């Protein structure tokens, strides 16, 4: 099928196109130079914005913890339902939508690629089954490897190459995409109900520190030539004073960077940018973090913006979720996974009038606005931890309009307001920068070469928004901007029109992107793993890997490791 998108204002930062009026041609799911106008389906995009399809670097949309969250919260679903239509399956929202609804809602906002950032390797099949039931969008998933016994043992003995081979085996056999590290060392300690306090606290029984885990896996990442950096959820997340841990984490891999390339991604940075001694004195550490990031090039971040709403928090950080349960007294799910990781879930309501929640809200926006280079920080809510992904258009409005920020600031806790830097920040992002923060930068950080741009040969994932950058001043008309980004005029996925005027018009399956890592000696590794398999896990070696039949559409990327 051929499509011609005519006369749109194109924002394609990778190809340095900033709002030029031009045509985009699509054939067989790819962007091409030109198509025959008489036979192609022509979309008149005049007066509209054309961008690459949205890319989300961090959203919990599938897998055992997400599903445990769904099970935990019938009250969350009953208020937000999606009836079946002749085209789409039914489902429910709100903060943890069912799989079909997740795919539809993302595509209705013009998003076409989403990263599911935490997969317990033992339960990888579950994650992939759910991803296969998540329509339209392409997805990838990151196995949790920061507390895996094999990794800890090899790293503590300094056998970095051995560790790399095992990680390669793990990513390939669980169909993962990147190395996810959550509270390194802390999750293993949580096995006995403990945590680690700093980067240099020794992990009980394993003779290793979080610093060594992060550095080790960062080196492994480089040895394996993985497209994305290590994806790190820092220690001490969600604790006052943790901005120091966050800075320490970024610093600890500074020397491993080559050619100004990023080597670490700090995810949902808002949650690890708290200053202060306790919850009373807690304040924003965004300035310090922004200052550090502005002077370095080895780190990328995502926001983890908080939205004032009722949501469901879920992370692999078991001890953090326990603290949150103690703080809130809400219902609490914990799920530890043998030899690998843990996880926890607590429903949570962010309130405007709460001092801490309001400070959290300001931190996210401060980070996004104080970090000068939009290629370094990406827009996320750490869905659903800061709020559901459906609130992205609201964040876009806040980023593009200081007036929008002021409107919300007026309503938040006065003490938080008076302490915030936000009123002093005039910066307003333009559509070009928004394109970078919501898709292009994320695709680049993930090493997805065929996504995040509209050059010839790119995947034909395109979002068209009904807003005219020449006639609209986002600073004043932020409500229009928000509306436009809530309901894409068109979403094109792999060359097919899937959304029109904010409604799904076609149900297609999305692909699962995973890495096939080639190392020099794969057989040796599996022998070692096989030998210890029955000791470590309660399943058989043959039953552990995820076969390709679990993927609705499999999109393997071959990676040549340098070991």
């Amino acid at each position, binding site marked *: 099928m051929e499509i011609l998108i005519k006369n749109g204002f194109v924002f394609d930062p990778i190809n340095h196109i900033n709002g030029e009026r031009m045509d985009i041609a699509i054939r067989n799911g790819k962007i091409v130079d030109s198509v025959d106008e008489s036979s192609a389906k022509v979309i008149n995009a005049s007066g509209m914005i054309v961008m690459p399809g949205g890319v989300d670097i961090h959203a919990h949309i599938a897998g*055992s913890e*997400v*599903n*445990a969250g*769904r*099970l*935990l*919260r*019938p009250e969350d*679903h*009953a208020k937000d*339902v*999606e*009836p*079946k239509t*002749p085209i789409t*399956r*039914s*489902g*429910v929202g709100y903060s943890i*939508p*069912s*799989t*079909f609804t997740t795919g539809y809602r993302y595509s209705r906002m013009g998003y076409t690629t989403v990263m599911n950032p935490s997969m317990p390797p*033992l*339960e990888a*099949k*579950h994650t992939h*089954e*759910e991803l296969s*039931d998540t329509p339209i969008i392409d997805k990838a998933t990151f196995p949790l490897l920061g507390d895996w*016994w094999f990794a800890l043992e090899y790293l503590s003995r300094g056998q970095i190459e051995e560790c790399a081979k095992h990680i390669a085996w793990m990513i390939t056999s669980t169909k993962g995409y990147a190395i996810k590290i959550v509270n390194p060392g802390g999750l293993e300690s949580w*096995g*006995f*109900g403990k945590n680690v306090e700093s980067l240099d606290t020794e992990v009980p*029984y394993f003779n290793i520190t979080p610093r060594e885990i992060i550095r080790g896996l960062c080196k492994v990442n480089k040895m394996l030539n993985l497209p994305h950096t290590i994806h790190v959820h820092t220690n001490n997340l969600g604790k006052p004073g943790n901005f120091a841990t966050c800075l320490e984490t970024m610093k600890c891999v500074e020397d491993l960077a080559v050619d100004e390339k990023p080597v670490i991604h700090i995810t949902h940075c808002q949650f690890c940018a708290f200053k202060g001694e306790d919850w009373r004195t807690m304040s924003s550490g965004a300035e310090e973090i922004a200052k550090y990031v502005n002077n370095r090039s080895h780190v990328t971040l995502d926001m983890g913006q908080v939205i004032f709403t009722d949501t469901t928090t879920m992370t692999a950080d078991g001890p953090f979720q*326990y603290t949150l*349960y103690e703080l809130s007294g*809400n*219902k*609490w*799910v*914990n*799920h*530890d*996974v*043998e*030899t690998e990781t*843990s996880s926890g*879930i*607590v429903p949570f309501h962010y309130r405007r009038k709460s001092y801490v929640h309001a400070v959290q809200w300001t931190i996210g926006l401060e980070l996004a606005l104080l970090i000068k280079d939009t290629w370094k920080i990406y827009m996320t809510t750490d869905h659903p931890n800061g709020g559901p992904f459906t609130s992205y258009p609201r964040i876009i409005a806040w980023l593009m309009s200081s007036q929008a920020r002021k409107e919300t600031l007026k309503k938040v806790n006065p003490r938080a307001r008076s302490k915030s830097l936000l009123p002093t920040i005039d910066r307003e992002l333009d559509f070009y920068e928004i394109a970078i923060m919501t898709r292009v930068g994320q695709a680049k950080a993930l090493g997805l070469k065929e996504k995040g741009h509209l050059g010839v040969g790119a995947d034909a994932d395109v979002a068209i928004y009904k807003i005219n950058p020449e006639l609209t001043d986002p600073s004043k008309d932020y409500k229009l901007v928000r509306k436009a980004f809530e309901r894409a005029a068109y979403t094109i996925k792999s060359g097919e029109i899937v959304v029109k005027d904010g409604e799904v018009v076609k149900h297609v399956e999305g692909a699962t992107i995973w890495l096939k890592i080639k190392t020099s000696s794969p057989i040796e590794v599996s022998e070692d793993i096989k030998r210890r398999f029955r*000791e470590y*896990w*309660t*399943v*058989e*070696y*043959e*039953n552990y890997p995820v*076969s390709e039949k679990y993927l609705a559409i499999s999109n393997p990327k071959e990676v040549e490791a340098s070991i």
Partner: protein
Amino acid sequence: MEIVKAVTCPVCGSLCDDIEVVMENGKIVDVRNACAAGAAKFLNYNCEHRILKPLIRKNGEFVEVSLDEAIRKAAEILANASYPILYGWSSTSCEAVRVGLELAEEIGGVIDNTSTVCHGPSILSIQDVGIPSCTLGQIRHRADLVVYWGSNPWSAHPRHIERYTAFSEGRFQKSTWRRYLAKIRALIAKKKLERAFKRIFFKREISVPPHLRYEPPPFLERKERKLIVIDVRRTKSAEIADYFIKVEPGKDYELLQALRMLIRDQEIETDKVAGVPVEYLEEVADVMVNCDFGILFFGVGLTMSGAKMRNIDAAICLTRDLNMRTKFVIMPMRGHFNVTGANVVSTWQTGYPFAVDFSLGYPRYNPGETSVVDILLRGESDASLIIASDPASSFPKKAVEHLAKTPLIVIDPHMNVTAQIADVVIPSAFVGIEAEGTAYRMDHVPLPLKKIVEPPEGILPDEEIVRRILVEVRRLKGIGGS
């Protein structure tokens, strides 16, 4: 002779995946590593109760028909029904459940699985208070205190203790099977002595042997792996336990709350709770607080007796309280091999684990209203599809009567009680033996089910049958597509 290794056993929620099946000429001749229940299924699945042809009831008698005709008839029943129920799903693959949900959505019916009469109350409690849990390997490696409450794993999940808990060996914990053997030997010796005594002193009553008194043994205080069983009767599991607490039937809730009080250092101003002396409970509470990693497994004995879901509320709250002092987790002992999977798939597609009503076009969940037993008791449904389950032998009589009164489709390998009162019977292959798929262990670990042998000619897996019915329903309703 050929040996198929790493086969997952499609019997109970333990889902042992280390089964070795010995094949000769395409037939199963032996099974290794399996428990009695598992071996029986692998060796005898092809029994005389197997249905080999689709059946339709005509003039009150079953008539053999072609598969196409049976599927057409089933689709007609479902497409013409205004409030059909689709029930079962716990002994089949996740893949079949996925199609089942699509079918339920298409016909605007209610889809429910066997948790509704089993661990449904556990799910309701989880929705109330959450659940601190873990995978079974975590218990093998770390748990130094294992409690089974209202469940009898030795008989119902025979390899559970050996593979995952007291008798398994982990990184931080040793197996206790030696201690168990020593205990058994001592018991046998004691019995012999007693018999000898009886012979010498004729029929004079002797004192109750110590293992039948309810005093906690002194070694409960020692730092080593311990097994406690709490039940209304002395089960086989209780025999192997280090300590057995006999709770009065229906009094579990009191006992749980008493333990919660003791753990919070509150005084209990009575001598006995649920028939157990408080001083003994105090010792148990001490053991719970002082362990490094404790686990409470609970079975249907807790979910389906007395206070039902309030029991589980109390049990989960007890676990939560214990987490203030140490690490403690809790896990339901799921029965059918894929009842967890049925919950999991239903949850990711609809947001709800069981009792999902599609009659308004979107998923709705209100157990008590949308659960099949209640629908049947109110006589609201006008057709039913039962798959991989036998509700006629477990539902209340009145519910079964309504099931029989309305058109009934059964998909099952066996001529079970429900099939005998059905209008359409479609035989299916045994998933995990004759068909592949995925199942979820009780701790939510997904495992592949293998196809080892070919099903009898013309017999399809559940997934395929349901898909064919779905296609036929769509054809009848004039909807194109797959």
